[in-house]
């Protein structure tokens, strides 16, 4: 069953945030032909023990959060990507070869506590 949560309450919990990587900012526009950038996203937020069930958590994260409660020296579970997808890049190398290549795990699709 859905749990009603006050508005703004979830803001600090682990979730996906939008992040557009512009190759010009990295200086990569000098050799990357396309795309000009891509929506890479990132994961950020708290993984409190009480919410691990709802934050797409692994069993390990649940156990770690439990251990953190028992012993604060054990770090909290962290917010990490749980599903990633690839992108294709068209670029030119120093030998004037034009290369189209795909790179795995470049875009964060989903986040969770791990």
């Amino acid at each position, binding site marked *: 069953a859905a749990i009603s949560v006050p508005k703004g309450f979830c803001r600090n919990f682990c979730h996906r945030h939008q992040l557009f990587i512009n190759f010009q900012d990295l200086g990569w526009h000098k050799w990357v032909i396309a795309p000009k950038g891509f929506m890479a996203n990132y994961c950020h937020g708290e993984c409190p023990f009480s919410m691990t069930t709802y934050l797409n958590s692994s069993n390990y994260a649940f156990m770690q959060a439990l251990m953190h409660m028992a012993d604060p020296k054990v770090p909290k579970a962290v917010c990490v990507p749980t599903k990633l997808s690839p992108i294709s890049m068209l670029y*030119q190398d120093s030998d004037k070869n034009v290369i189209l290549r795909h790179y795995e795990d470049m875009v964060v699709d989903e986040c969770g506590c791990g």
Partner: protein
Amino acid sequence: SEFQDSDLLQFLGLEKAPSPHRFQPVPRVLRKIIRAREAAAASGASQDLCYVKELGVRGNLLQLLPDQGFFLNTQKPFQDGSCLQKVLYFNLSAIKEKAKLTMAQLTLDLGPRSYYNLRPELVVALSVVQDRGVWGRSHPKVGRLLFLRSVPGPQGQLQFNLQGALKDWSSNRLKNLDLHLEILVKEDRYSRVTVQPENPCDRLLRSLHASLLVVTLNPKHCHPSSRKRR
């Protein structure tokens, strides 16, 4: 900067940050592929990036290698209707040994379509270079003929499948591919009455552009698609 030049670029499969002085022309098919993939990614549709739908082949790496060869005897006219001769040279060192070659297509761009009338008819002969001799100085020894193709109008792009030739190369582990290209003018009964604003051979000499598109599949990154059992 130091980090970017080594670790991150190595992670992307690059030894160092490329620094091209200017971008090479990108063929329409590569632009089409990247646009289709960008659109699919934006819409969230799942896509198999180990299959190049636009070319109908499996592969995760497409490389367009520029021709680094040279024209032969540009000063002296050839005999027997030969229009031009060129050694095509492709540096294949960018192709990794473990990669499986799934496509090798040579494109000869004879120039824009609006340049010419549809004559004279040309014949394109493409052979392997058996012995290159002194690079750039002596006339190379021409070996096996790969293609002999009649071209009604010297315009646009011609494509040649070189996968067989490159497989020979692959088994010998050579680092480059040398080809001998000869373009001949076929006698045309209309050519004498057609007003040609410029000698087509001179124009071809300026506009001819060759490139080799190589598609490879790295089994480490692309697993064979699983089949359902009955």
